[in-house]
């Protein structure tokens, strides 16, 4: 134990002078003092070299002249407007989501008779500072006005979206439905509406209709019938609209760069979560067949390196699917990444399920809850809360590992570098610069995810134990 932990007088306080601050933080006792004296020059030197590289010697033209290439890779340039539109629509989706979330918080606070905790714009900047810094870096590197216009459009769309907080409480699920719809629309602005894309929209609209119009003043069973009818109607209308109005786009086999990295990882994360949850539940099922299947799948996948799975996805997946299914290279990669992540999610969730005391199960059963509701309402929510950090860690991991697609000759964010260095001007130079840039890009997103997970953890723990 050091002296500083014993003497409260050496603890820094808000009113101390700079000198006292240096004393208490850097030289609280002999041992720390020596450490400071040794480390400080090293740190200063490292910072000096880094600054020299960043601001003086670095040849950033390799990045600045290829900014578009890093962002969208080999995606057809004459279709760039689609990506711009996508960014704006996605910003709208996030705005609607944020607006609805804040309205929900307001509802909860009002019902509990508590003051609404206000969110300052500053706290939003602090939450997403790594992403904001990355966008500012892109703007700093930009040589045209387009990126500035895109960012301005995205900010405006986000702000418009937050107006969703004025949707009345009774239609709260409408906000979530609109947000989900905008997410899907953002995807389809680029991908077009061909193939089975109508199914995703139909699911969103049918679920949205079901959960928005609850017919609460209609008696019991009849309300369920009405809700089902509205949902089916939404489904049919979506199907008809999509088959009547075909809007061609650029399929994801032509996507590349950071754009591809973000979509591939997001899809793998979003798809692997429910799959992993089901696997975890199946592994604890009372039906032996389910248990064996899920355990077998999990152990099989976890025993194989991701890169092997990715190759298997490219070369073997075809044999395992019905004849005539023609999966593109990107779809195969997303499938492999999803299965891989699902196996790990399943193990993480299983740990969470095991951590919930049996008393919770007993209390739920004693109240008359059937097993399904007991799991869905009591056990799973608590289990998921308990494993948020591990889950998000897994998601960050698959996000970074999406760079392995490079080896499959898919030009995602990291792979774009090889295109840059194939250019005459950068054949043998600026490798370090492009690497640093790509690293900053990955870090900005990974760090934001990590911070959000910590925030979620704290928020869900608030007021408990």
């Amino acid at each position, binding site marked *: 134990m050091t002296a500083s932990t014993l003497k409260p007088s050496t603890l820094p306080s808000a009113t101390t002078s700079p000198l006292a601050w240096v004393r208490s933080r850097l030289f609280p006792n002999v041992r720390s003092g020596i450490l400071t004296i040794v480390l400080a020059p090293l740190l200063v030197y490292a910072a000096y070299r880094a600054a020299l590289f960043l601001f003086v010697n670095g040849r950033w033209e390799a990045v600045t002249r290829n900014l578009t290439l890093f962002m969208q890779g080999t995606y057809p340039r004459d279709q760039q407007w689609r990506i711009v539109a996508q960014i704006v629509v996605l910003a709208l989706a996030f705005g609607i989501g944020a607006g609805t979330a804040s309205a929900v918080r307001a509802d909860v606070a009002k019902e509990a008779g*508590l003051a609404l905790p206000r969110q300052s714009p500053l706290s939003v900047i602090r939450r997403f500072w790594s992403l904001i810094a990355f966008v500012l870096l892109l703007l700093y590197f930009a040589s045209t006005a387009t990126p500035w216009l895109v960012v301005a459009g995205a900010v405006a769309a986000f702000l418009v979206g937050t107006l969703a907080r004025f949707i009345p409480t009774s239609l709260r699920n409408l906000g979530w439905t609109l947000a989900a719809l905008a997410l899907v629309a953002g995807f389809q602005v680029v991908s077009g509406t061909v193939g089975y894309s109508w199914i995703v929209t139909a699911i969103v609209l049918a679920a949205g209709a079901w959960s928005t119009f609850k017919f609460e003043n209609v008696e019991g069973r009849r309300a369920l019938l009405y809700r089902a009818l509205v949902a089916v109607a939404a489904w049919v209308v979506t199907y008809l609209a999509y088959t009547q109005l075909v809007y061609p786009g650029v399929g994801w086999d032509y996507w590349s760069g950071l754009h591809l990295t973000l979509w591939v990882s997001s899809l793998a994360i979003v798809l692997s979560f429910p799959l992993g949850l089901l696997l975890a539940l199946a592994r604890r099922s009372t039906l032996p067949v389910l248990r064996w299947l899920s355990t077998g799948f999990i152990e099989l996948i976890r025993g194989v390196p991701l890169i092997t799975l990715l190759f298997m996805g490219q070369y073997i997946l075809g044999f395992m699917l019905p004849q005539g299914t023609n999966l593109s290279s990107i779809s195969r990669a997303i499938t492999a990444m999803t299965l891989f992540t699902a196996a790990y999610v399943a193990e993480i969730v299983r740990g969470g399920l095991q951590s919930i005391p049996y008393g919770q199960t007993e209390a739920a*059963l004693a109240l008359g809850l059937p097993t399904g509701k007991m799991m869905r309402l009591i056990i799973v929510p608590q289990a998921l809360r308990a494993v948020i950090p591990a889950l998000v860690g897994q998601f960050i991991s698959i996000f970074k590992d999406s760079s392995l697609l490079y080896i499959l000759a898919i030009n995602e964010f990291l792979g774009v570098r090889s295109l840059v260095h194939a250019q005459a001007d950068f054949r043998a130079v600026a490798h370090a610069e492009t690497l640093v840039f790509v690293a900053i890009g990955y870090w900005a997103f990974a760090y934001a995810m990590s911070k959000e997970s910590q925030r979620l953890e704290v928020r869900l723990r608030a007021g408990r134990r």
Partner: protein
Amino acid sequence: MSSGRAQIFADATEAKGDVIIEVEGVDKFFGDFQALKDINMNVGRQEVVVVIGPSGSGKSTLIRCINRLEKHDRGRIVVDGIELSDDLRSIQEVRRETGMVFQQFNLFPHLTVLENITLAPREVRRMPKKEAEEIAMRMLERVKIPEQAHKYPGQLSGGQQQRVAIARALAMQPKVMLFDEPTSALDPEMIKEVLDVMEELADSGMTMIVVTHEMGFARAVADRVVFMAQGQIVEVGTPEHFFTDPQEERTKLFLSQIL
């Protein structure tokens, strides 16, 4: 409610009035170990039965068989005319009629007090939210903590948590309440607030089976006391009988240890 007169019953099946719980020749095994041996017990409507006995004597196992948290291996258990069998429906039905309060409270920590209480009425009885919340608030008033409705269980004291657990069970409007050592995990200063609530519940006419070591509670509230040891019912009587004139050696020994 006690008769005020020491009385010994021939066995535990002599319930007061109209019978709501019948336990007939029940055996329960955990592997080779027999936790319940030929248990026969009836409980009358509005009766309060206190179960006492040394640790490991099968008290918890007995009341957990009554709402099928444990499955009995032999014999018959009938609750309000519904016989417990492997049929899931009968189990659900019995659980809806039976409230249970645990030693460790077992509140749902991720839900507010109000959500804890409204959960089962809404999900099991399919009650609309408004109605369920009105009932929940009435129950919270009954256990005297309506002001805690929007807190999480972790923000409450042990005594308050146990009272929420009682309110949660009552919100299902059960016909029978089972208590498994409801005050054993509480700090001494909180025991009384929980026992007071239970006493008021008994006065309101609730049928209750209470496993407890609180002999003061037993004396004030119980109609009958059942003494168990080694998986068997050893002696049954009014509280007066137990305090003045216990018959069996094992009963005397046990009472001398806890009184």
